[in-house]
């Protein structure tokens, strides 16, 4: 997948608004592979909705969203499963980790599906993000900031054309946010992947091609 296009897309809940002032909604927008995008948003402007549309778990929108030339409304279960394994990675705002599994098990759950990373590389990522001592702690006992980093490692355990990050640094300090930015940039450049980051306040510092207001 090289291109994600939004044509006149609008969440259905906004359909009865009189006026939409947005760089994304009701516009034609293109996200190209290999480029980094920042979508800044105020609360309630449909930031998580955008991620859920792109990731295929909600479709309550108007307009058209295409991956390359394919309208994503036409994609079947098998195609979505394939996309989520091979071309689209996401870091959810609510993380969606499994609280009863350890941090490592959460990551391996994904990696055993894709077989993308070696266990040693995964361990290195844990150390680089400062949670090397938390690998075997159940996720339920980690702080939200620590969980965010676990979720990032999980998101990196797959091949990707695009990486979606929904408020990835909301609970991270400067040092960890910079680490995350560095790791992401390395991973993206290695795969030639595009990155789409949403942010409500604190930004993930990347070399953005384009910044948009939602």
């Amino acid at each position: 997948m090289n291109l994600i296009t939004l044509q006149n897309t609008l969440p259905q809940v906004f359909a009865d608004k009189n006026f939409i002032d947005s760089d994304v909604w009701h516009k034609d927008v293109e996200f190209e592979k290999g480029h980094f995008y920042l979508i800044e948003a105020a609360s309630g402007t449909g930031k998580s909705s955008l991620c859920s549309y792109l990731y295929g778990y909600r479709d309550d929108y108007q307009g058209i969203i295409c991956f390359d030339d394919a309208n994503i409304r036409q994609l079947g279960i098998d195609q979505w499963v394939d996309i989520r394994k091979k071309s689209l990675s996401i870091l959810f705002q609510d993380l969606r980790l499994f609280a009863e599994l350890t941090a490592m098990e959460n990551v391996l759950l994904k990696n055993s599906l894709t077989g993308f990373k070696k266990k040693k590389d995964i361990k290195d990522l844990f150390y680089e993000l400062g949670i090397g001592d938390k690998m075997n702690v159940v996720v339920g006992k980690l702080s939200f900031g620590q969980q965010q980093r676990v979720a990032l490692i999980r998101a990196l355990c797959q091949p990707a054309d695009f990486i979606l990050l929904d408020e990835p640094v909301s609970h991270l300090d400067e040092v960890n946010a910079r680490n995350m930015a560095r790791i992401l940039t390395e991973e993206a450049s290695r795969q030639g992947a595009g990155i789409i980051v949403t942010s409500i306040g604190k930004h993930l510092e990347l070399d953005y091609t384009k910044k948009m207001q939602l």
Partner: protein
Amino acid sequence: MTYIWKLLRRHISPAQLAGFFLANLFGMVIVLLSIQFYQDVAPLFTQGDSFLKKDYLIVSKQVSTLGSFVGKSGTFTEADIEEIEEQEFTQGVGAFMPSQFKVSAGLGMEQVGLKMSTDLFFESVPDAYVDVNSEQWYFDFEEPVVPIIIPRNYLNLYNFGFAQSRSLPQLSEGVMGLLNLEIRISGNGRSDVYKGNIVGFSDRLNTILVPETFMNWANTLYADADARKQPSRLIVEVDNPADDRIVRFLEEKGYEAENDKLDAGKTTWFLRVIVGIVLSVGLLISLLSFYILMLSVYLLLQKNTTKLENLLLIGYSPARVALPYQVLTILLNVGVWMLSVALVWWVRTWYLHTLESLSPGLPEGSCWLMLVVGFLLLVGVSVFNVLAIRRKVDAIWMHRG
């Protein structure tokens, strides 16, 4: 797989699964046992006939007082037999062939100092009409041993009449089979002694029966050349003994019928009804237990909905997510099947023992039907389980978000 299982096994209720397991086991055992029991017991009544018991009439000409005096023949001519064969209700006709020589049989059990000898007669019918299944029912010209079938009520007459009044030992069917009879056959200027064995007891044929092959052989050897060759009794296989055309035909021709009214037909029918009822109860229990399993699995899926959703979101396919639950139900079903077959087997050895003593030499019923029905139930239930679970997981995918 291990991580998924670790995730999804939460909320599994052992009590619910045990409930399903026991209920399904109950149902399955009842279903399989009733099938197996029918297979084993039915031959007791049908004596090896097919599932549907055939009906027979034994037809003879009326013996009238006048006829006895004028020496009127009581035998059936070829034309008589053909006429009966042509009737619509007739499935087949077999002739009773009487012995045309003198027979006397001696019975000895030296151990108890008992020795009896009596004049007899033999009759034969085609083998297909013999209601006793015995491997010994053949005559070998090289080693002549005469297998004999006697009516079961002869034995009863002896046991409950003769033996009691003379303080003689009562004889079981099994012991009778062990007796060696001395058969003396004479006629046509010859006289020979053969060994004889009682190989069975007939409820249908009220005569002393020998194999047709023996009868033909002995008749050519010992009978006078001018002896009568015509049968005096016929056994007629009919499709429905309640057919009123039979009664009319017999009356018109002046024949008498001795119906094979041994009630085996009724008994088998009752057996079939009872087995049918038990089978339905078993199936009902199986159905309910299946319902318990589905409810239990649905509840489990419901409790794990969020996890399942998240698994689907991180790239697991619905098939992969459904797999642990499907494997769980299949394992349970296979366990139930194996255990119920084992239980049926165990119960069977127990009642077969009783059955064997009731009727020695009864052909053992086959287990195949029971195994096949059990397997079909297993496969049917498992397929349904697998599909239902998959549908439920697909539904979680559809209601994403």
